[in-house]
């Protein structure tokens, strides 16, 4: 709605309609802790941008206790929310500015609703984080910023709210922005802006405030209008997940879908995945006629020059900069399930337009959302965020999430309950790095404590006698009550076992160049084990 619009003649209306058609869509997520004033801020944005109607305003005026309008009442919609005075579930609100139509995801602040924040953040172009000026930067603030960056939101507005209760003190504002900036620089935001506001008083939200002469005058709304748009879609490589095959008659075979990223033109050479068949775009069809080219996020129907077998779940992409097919991959998961992640169970992964059976082979680490550090974990529980190794039954045709939010994202579904139990963001192929990271998570001290011994590699080199020596040594150590194994030839394995607290007898009948180096170089990073040279053993 546009405020007090006066349409005096036909020309005015045509101009107004044209302006409305040209508006861009901006998706915004608003986050903050409980009582930070989130609902009040959104209520005020809706009210001041005329996103509300008179009867809605009147209803809220009736329900507001005091003289002032309680803006938060515009948003909390469920009975339980009004009863408890909190926001439980993500809700979507709408308002328009002169240039933009804005979809606001209003998300709950409680940590137990992390999943709802991730839901709201998954599609957002920009995030607003509320900070209570009296309380300062809380762990919750940092958590929300971390989740926003994890979900790939490029633009962040940190709104220091309740400045009226701090007498609009510029020193308070400067201290908080400085503190947050130090933290934000560790995250991947493209732009972080700060606003001194009072949601209740309406300062610096849609109008510059006279009470903050030390602020540059930019308002939250002005910032929303100024953001670059669809940045990530324009230059990205062409990706088209096939949703539906249209076959109205024998002469027509069209592949319907929504362009995930990039631009496609008639005549372009494309590759169909996973078959990797190459062909050309013969036509781009829509209900309104055929197009010469189309860009994300349009829903179109493609016809191909050759009779290529294509079905739902396949992906059409340009031959240059193709996506990757990954069966073993590393991903970040936000766990939503009431039940913990079970690494022995099979789940379903929905990625673009297909479901693939998958299991989580290993949890590499879990993010401690209080300290924002990475900690060892065997599993993930409700609202946990962690890095995992995922094994899919069939390869996902994908891109890293940081490069493509459409082809890099997936959800995890529990096939027994049909619940959506996790959101996933693809990092890349699972490699050796994963194992290294996993190994380092349990400290040598912990292992020593459990086994009651230090791990060590006992190196037997060179001569043919080691083949008979090794079993005897193993027997002797075992009889002494030590945990011991024998490893033939593979220094990497021996190191891993030693790190796990075992005595590893490593022998090889042939001296190979460089292998001793591997042991020596690894030794300093794992202070919990020691290399026992054969000489010291034979001295026993």
């Amino acid at each position: 709605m546009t405020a007090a619009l006066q349409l005096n003649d036909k020309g005015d209306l045509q101009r107004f309609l044209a302006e409305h058609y040209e508006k861009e869509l901006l998706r915004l997520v608003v986050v903050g802790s409980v009582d930070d004033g989130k609902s009040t801020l959104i209520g005020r944005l809706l009210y001041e941008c005329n996103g509300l109607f008179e009867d809605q305003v009147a209803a809220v005026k009736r329900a507001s206790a005091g003289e002032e309008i309680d803006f938060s009442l515009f948003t909390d919609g469920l009975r339980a929310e009004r009863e408890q005075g909190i926001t439980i579930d993500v809700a979507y609100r709408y308002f328009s500015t002169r240039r933009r139509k804005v979809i606001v995801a209003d998300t709950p602040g409680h940590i137990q609703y992390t999943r709802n924040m991730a839901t709201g953040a998954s599609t957002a172009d920009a995030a607003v984080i509320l900070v209570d000026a009296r309380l300062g930067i809380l762990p919750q603030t940092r958590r929300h910023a971390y989740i926003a960056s994890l979900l790939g939101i490029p633009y962040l507005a940190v709104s220091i709210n309740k400045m009226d209760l701090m007498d609009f003190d510029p020193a308070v504002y400067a201290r908080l922005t400085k503190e947050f900036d130090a933290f934000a620089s560790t995250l991947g935001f493209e732009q972080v802006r700060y606003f001194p506001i009072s949601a209740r008083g309406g300062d610096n939200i849609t109008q510059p405030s006279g009470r903050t002469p030390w602020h540059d005058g930019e308002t939250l709304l002005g910032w929303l209008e100024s953001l670059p748009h669809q940045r990530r879609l324009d230059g990205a490589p062409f990706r088209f997940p096939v949703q539906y095959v249209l076959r109205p008659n024998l002469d027509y075979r069209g592949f319907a879908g929504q362009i995930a990223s990039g631009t496609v033109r008639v005549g372009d050479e494309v590759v169909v995945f996973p078959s990797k068949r190459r062909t050309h775009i013969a036509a781009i069809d829509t209900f309104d006629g055929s197009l010469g080219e189309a860009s994300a996020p349009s829903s179109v129907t493609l016809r191909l020059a050759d009779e290529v077998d294509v079905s739902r779940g396949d992906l059409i992409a340009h031959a240059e900069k193709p996506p990757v097919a990954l069966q073993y991959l590393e991903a970040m998961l936000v766990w939503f399930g009431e039940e913990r992640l079970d690494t022995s169970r099979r789940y379903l992964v929905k990625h673009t337009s297909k479901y693939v059976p998958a299991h989580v082979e290993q949890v590499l680490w879990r993010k401690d959302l209080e300290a924002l550090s990475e900690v060892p974990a065997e599993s993930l529980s409700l609202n946990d965020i962690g890095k995992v190794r995922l094994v899919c039954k069939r390869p996902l045709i994908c891109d890293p999430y940081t490069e493509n939010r459409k082809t890099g994202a997936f959800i995890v579904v529990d096939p027994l309950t049909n619940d959506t139990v996790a959101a996933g963001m693809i990092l890349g192929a699972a490699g050796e790095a994963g194992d290294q990271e996993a190994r380092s998570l349990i400290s040598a001290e912990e292992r020593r404590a459990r086994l009651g011994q230090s791990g060590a590699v006992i190196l037997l080199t060179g001569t043919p006698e080691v083949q008979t020596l090794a079993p005897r040594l193993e027997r002797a150590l075992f009889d002494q009550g030590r945990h011991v194994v024998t490893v033939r030839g593979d220094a990497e394995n021996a190191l891993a076992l030693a790190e796990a607290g075992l005595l590893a007898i490593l022998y090889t009948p042939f001296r190979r160049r460089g292998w001793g180096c591997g042991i020596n170089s690894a030794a300093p990073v794992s202070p919990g084990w020691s290399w026992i040279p054969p000489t010291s053993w034979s001295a026993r």
Partner: protein
Amino acid sequence: MSETLSARLSHLAVLEAESIHIIRETAAEFANPVMLYSIGKDSQVLLHLARKAFHPAPLPFPLLHVDTTWKFREMYQFRDSFTAKLGLKLLVHQNKKALAEGMNPFDHGSQKYTHAMKTQSLLEALALHGFDAAFGGARRDEEKSRAKERVYSFRDRHGQWEPRKQRPELWNLYNGRIDAGESMRVFPLSNWTELDVWHYILKERIPVVPLYFAAERPVVDRKGQWIMVDDERMRLRPGEKATMKRVRFRTLGCYPLSGAIESSATNVEEIITEMMEARVSERQGRLIDHDEEGSMELKKREGYF
């Protein structure tokens, strides 16, 4: 014809693309979907988007009109001529048992009436045909509990909505997996506002029931709402007499429960103009929303859209 779509799409183009994606996804993943058709402006937009989604193929699902038998006569005429012209498959379902028991909006009150003729009737129809997904034209901007609604709204075996147990919905990855007997309500217009709907109707020249445009109509004043006397079944209270007023409807339901507004808007452009100047929400004309605070949420829990 060759055209270039701007890399920077307008919000209506983005909303259209998103809705088409949702419609195709549902058609692909469900065995037996249906599109609810209530003859209103949102239904017209939804249907238009569905035709775009599958062009040049016909719609891969039928339309279902849950008929309370108390719609405006013009709505029935529009329904039959419009669907026949496009060759669409239309199913009409009425709650015959409730009708036989004499259910009507006057004697039973709007709550009981809505439950029997809309909620119960819809659940009956879905079960009768074994539909596992039903598209609806509901928008999140209509009402506060709608703002919490997912695009894919899971319903249990009894057609019930449980707001605390909604599936999280991320990106454009919708989870449509259900067990036998369960179903999904799908709302492709979730992110549209009333103004978007009218702009789109104008831009795409989508036909709508003439009741949306102002005309002289016989009405009576009920609690500040103009109720149209559409046929002889309307019960006039003692001393009540229908008068001719230049009115139109922002929202269309059963005629005894739909309030008209005084207006002179006779085309879509004038409706948009009027909307920009009048600042009253469309659901104010829906008597059933105002039974009590949170009444829409309660209806939805029971299976209403």
